[in-house]
């Protein structure tokens, strides 16, 4: 989940003209409307199917389910494995967000106020998870951890840093742009002339000013981690089942239970929705239309 507009704005992108809303605002033509409605329909279709499957008693051969019930939601939410999986995914995603904030914020701050040479290094590192599939990173980590840290294999203690590493670029763009916007250099200099030390400057002056950036960085990192399946599956397999992996396993099993799959997918969907809304509202001030999306849509 990343605000993709950043990806283009970042290094080589000059200030983008504010989106204009004039052009005499032509009504989209016939084909335009057709394209729009087909797209919206195509997007809604699977969502509706999931929603209905979550509420269906049985669904044999009608366009809509044979009957409706809340039983699947009740049963799923009462199911021990389901709860563990959901809790684990949330904990992992929150851990990733926190870790990324702890790692990225001081680095970006230092780069801005002290050492600009940090920037190209971070930019290169940030470009890796942006373009290299997570599966490739996961497959590379597997033998490495086997050789150098076998005890970490299959545990949260490998997965968490790995998620933090792939999610950090998105947190980085969010935090970096908010530091640029709030002019942290000027603020730090002002704080220093007032006699504040680095710690006081950070906690009392800088942090309050970059809060929106931190929040949207955390939301982005959370989203990456919550939807990620390649690293989870390749590094931990079923020893650490998260929501996507659980969904995958359920889908693969021969007696796939569509109804509880639908509940799980519905939850994923709801969380995705909430995160998207959060990112958009946190970025409200930005000119470019806020896009949030999964890392690349890809390796999730």
């Amino acid at each position, binding site marked *: *989940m990343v605000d*993709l*507009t950043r990806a*283009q704005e970042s290094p080589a992108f*000059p200030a*983008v003209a504010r989106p204009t809303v004039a*052009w005499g*605002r032509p009504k989209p033509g016939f084909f*335009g409307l057709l394209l729009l409605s087909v797209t*919206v329909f195509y*997007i809604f*279709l*699977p969502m*509706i199917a*999931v929603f*209905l499957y979550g509420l269906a008693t049985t*669904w044999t051969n*009608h*366009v809509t389910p044979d009957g409706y019930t809340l039983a699947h939601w009740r049963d799923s939410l009462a199911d021990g494995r389901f709860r563990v999986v959901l809790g684990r995914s949330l904990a992992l995603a929150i851990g990733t967000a926190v870790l990324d904030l702890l*790692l990225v914020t001081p680095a970006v701050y230092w780069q801005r106020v002290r*050492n600009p*040479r940090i920037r190209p290094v971070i930019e290169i*590192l940030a470009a*890796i*998870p*942006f373009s*290299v*599939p997570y*599966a*490739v*990173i996961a497959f*590379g980590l597997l*033998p*490495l951890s086997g050789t150098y840290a076998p005890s970490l294999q299959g545990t949260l203690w490998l997965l968490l840093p*790995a998620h933090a*590493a*792939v999610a*950090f670029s998105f947190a980085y763009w969010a935090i970096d742009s908010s530091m640029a916007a709030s002019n942290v250099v000027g603020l730090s200099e002002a704080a220093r002339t007032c006699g504040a030390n680095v710690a006081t400057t950070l906690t009392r002056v800088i942090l309050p000013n970059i809060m929106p950036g931190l929040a949207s960085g955390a939301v982005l990192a959370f*989203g990456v981690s919550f*939807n990620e*399946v390649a690293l989870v599956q*390749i590094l931990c397999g079923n020893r650490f089942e998260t929501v996507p992996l659980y969904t995958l396993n359920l*889908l*693969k099993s021969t007696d796939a239970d569509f109804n509880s*799959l639908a509940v*799980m997918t519905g939850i994923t969907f709801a969380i*995705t929705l909430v*995160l*998207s809304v959060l990112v*958009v509202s946190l970025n409200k001030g930005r000119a470019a*239309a806020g*896009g*949030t*999306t*999964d890392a*690349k*849509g*890809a*390796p*999730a």
Partner: protein
Amino acid sequence: MSHHAQATGSGRYTAAARTLSIGERAKALFVDWSLALPLIVMASLLLIAPALSMVWSSFAGEDGHFTLANWAKTFSSAASQHAMENSLLLAATVATLSTLFGTPLSWMISRMARWSRSFHLGILNVAANFSGIGLGFAYVAALGTYGMVTLAFQNVGLGFTGLPQSSFTGLVLAYCYSNVPLFVLLSLPVMSLLRDEWWEAAQTSAATRWQFWRYIGAPVLMPFILADWLLIFTWSAGMYGLPVALVGEKPGAFRLVTVEMYRSLYGSFFGDHRMPVYAVLLMCLAAVSLLTNRWIMRRGTRWLT
């Protein structure tokens, strides 16, 4: 060392650094990087080291010595050739479709009134995010054998038995679900580069709508559209969760590079040697795409600066 210190800090530090001993300079250097070190160390260990390790494995034989055998075997095997061709073909198809549908969508949305713009953006946003295993299931639930659409077709008497989810068409449809919206989100900021006043100026120059797009709209947007195509292409080629959910282990199913990699986790039916080669190929694709992207952006924005 002093050269370094000069390049690094502002004048304050520089002046001091010249008179410092080696130890003190090392300390200053450490302080210059200190707060960024945890991030740099961690990201290097978890992002660069695995990449290097994949490169190394792709050239390592079973005895641990350098060899080109892995590459040779991978490229000479019909199955791997198939997987690579399929992956590239699928990625190119998805990227092209995303561009064809995404560009006009993006254009329309960029010229919408605020509220309808937010509405459409919101929908696209969620769709772009909803791209992994969840989408895999949702797709099955809609278009699979017992999917809603399949049932609907059967109800009106059409003998449609669901799209084979592991067919090329099935995969293209599923991939497009998140990639078309992704393309729109990617290209939207660029659409606002195209200023309304240029269309007005073109009109006062007697240009038709077609001539405007031909001589101004397309040349201005083209580099960015190409760059976005390339990103979608790269991401599609590397997509993992969705194809694994849709294709999985089914023997004889559609071969894709990422799915083959997934199978190497469990299977011994094909040699492990191919996986690192695939990984390196995807990495190269990523690098080429990223560099080309930057280059196109620089060229595309040349006249803007």
